């Protein structure tokens, strides 16, 4: 698409993370180009979700640098970090919707804090985002615990989209969804990326998501980067985990 999209939106250099003494990441470096859907895969416990938290500025790494839109996340003062976070949307694994607010109020919450929209405008935007996330309008006035798992994910996506982020983080977006809902969610993410030019960085275990919508894949394993590239590049890498990972569904692939 446009030329500006080629600049990396995420740059991780020599990242070392320790949790309770154990090294989770031991010198991980990679860059995520803009305007693409990039997946982060890795075995359980390989530190994918932790990496997401480090990138978004929730968990401080022991060493290394993380740049979002070219800005050093862990060197920014709090105000600048929050300004940076406004350009980013995050979909948590279980939605993390505010349980005391309706879906519409959940979407309106960031609008109230960060924009100068008047109340009717906020309500309009909430209606739009709910529609963008493929939720029926009737879901707007429901509380999160009145929604099914798939609808909760969509509601969380609507909230993540509230401020029109340039970069969207998705933590296991299709986990807990049935295959039909999961593929619909994939298509939704892809169309957001294609139409709105949003960069998407997602953690997933779902091979179908990987094969269906991802432009690039980043593989983590044993605290290191095992590889990065298109799906074809990744499959050529000689690593037991990667072999097993793709073998897990080879029976279904023609």
């Amino acid at each position, binding site marked *: 698409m*446009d030329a500006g999209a080629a600049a990396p939106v995420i740059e991780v250099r020599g990242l070392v993370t320790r949790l309770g003494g154990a090294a989770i990441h031991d010198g991980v470096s990679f860059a995520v180009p803009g305007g693409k859907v990039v997946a982060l895969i890795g075995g359980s416990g390989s530190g994918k979700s932790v990496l997401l938290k480090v990138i978004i500025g929730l968990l401080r790494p022991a060493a290394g640098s993380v740049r979002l839109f070219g800005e050093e996340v862990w060197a920014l003062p709090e105000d600048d970090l929050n300004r940076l976070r406004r350009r980013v949307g995050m979909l948590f694994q279980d939605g993390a919707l505010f*349980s*005391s607010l309706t879906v519409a109020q959940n979407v309106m919450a960031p609008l109230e804090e*960060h924009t100068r*929209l008047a109340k009717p405008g906020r309500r309009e935007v909430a209606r739009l985002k709910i*529609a963008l996330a493929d939720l029926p*309008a009737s879901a*707007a006035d429901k509380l999160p615990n009145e929604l099914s798992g798939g609808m909760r994910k969509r509601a969380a996506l609507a909230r993540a989209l509230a401020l029109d982020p340039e970069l969207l983080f998705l933590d296991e977006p299709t986990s807990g969804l049935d295959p039909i809902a999961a593929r619909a969610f994939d298509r939704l993410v892809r169309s957001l990326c*294609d139409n709105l030019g949003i960069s998407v960085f997602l953690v997933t275990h779902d091979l179908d998501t990987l094969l269906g919508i991802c432009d690039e894949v980043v593989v983590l394993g044993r605290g290191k980067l095992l590889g990065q590239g298109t799906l074809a590049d990744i499959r050529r890498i000689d690593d037991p985990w990667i072999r097993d990972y793709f073998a897990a569904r080879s029976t279904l692939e023609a």
Partner: protein
Amino acid sequence: MGETPRLTGDAASGRLAVGGAWSLGGGDPFLAPAVPAGAWREAVLDGSALTALDTSGAYALLQRLKAAGIDPGALRYEGFDARQLGVLRLVAERWPQEGAPALRPAPGLLHRLGYGAEQTRIHLLGLLAFLGRFAVEAARLLAHPRRFRVREWVVQLQAVFVDAIPLVVAMVFLLGVVFAYLLGFQARQYGANIFVVDGVTLAVCRELSPVIVAILVAGRSGAAMTAQLGTMKVTEEIDAIAVQGLSPFDVLVTPRILALLLALPLLVFVGDVAGLLGGMFTVRGQLDIGYTLFFDRLSSVLTTDTFLVGIVKAPVFALFIGLIACRMGLVVARDARAVGFATTSTVVQSIVSVILLDALFAILQVRLGI
């Protein structure tokens, strides 16, 4: 950034021009001007002066076009870049359904009163059912004592009784001091110094210690039980216990209530001692009633009846605190807010029931002449 969205039309050339920032970062796009009057069917929409366009701006723009009776699909778009066209396309594709659901009307006073009364009725019935369930489980436990979860009971006893001792001692001791001081202040005027010992003893052992200890336990242990069981319910741990073929009632509720049943009388006794000590130190300093005289008087005032009247209330208070706390924990809805509500509700209900039960005991004592 910060540029207000503009929408202007040139009727002669049939061109509509959008300009400025149609985005959340700019002015409020939903306050942008409407399409100027004119015939704009199949007009050209010129976006070359746009500085920003996001989904919200695109939505506001399309809303304005539609409000003027223009079909956005029939317009010719000029000066938009690929991304902006993508945004417009996506928003048009996923247009929110018309007719937003009507907001639920705020219920009137009568509605709320009726709702509250009905909820209270359901709640009281639920509590009664829970009491019945506990009675049945307790009876089964008598038949099969080996099913009793001793370890959980001991853990609860530690939390409810042992850990609460310092708090109870401090609170009732201070109450004893205050009560003796105020009583002594009055009694001295009539030369009735020695009766302060009577007053302190009766007040502490019959009322102050049982009621204050019960309220402390309701606020401390009752709230903790509701919060813990409620959180376990939210995280489906209680279902996990049931799926393993265990009864959540056996595993969680019975040990807690039985721990309370034993702990509260013991705590009331601790409170009695602390309150009397507080009174003893006070009367010595204020009224010159020495320790020997105090104990001398105490032995005639503190009859077994007086002591027992206070102590027998405790298990009854404990039963209700335990029932309310465990039931509120188990009926919590599955979200974070509900746990908070249930915990608050436990404390309020427990304290109200302790006071009501105490009043009942007072009436009973008068009738029985104790």
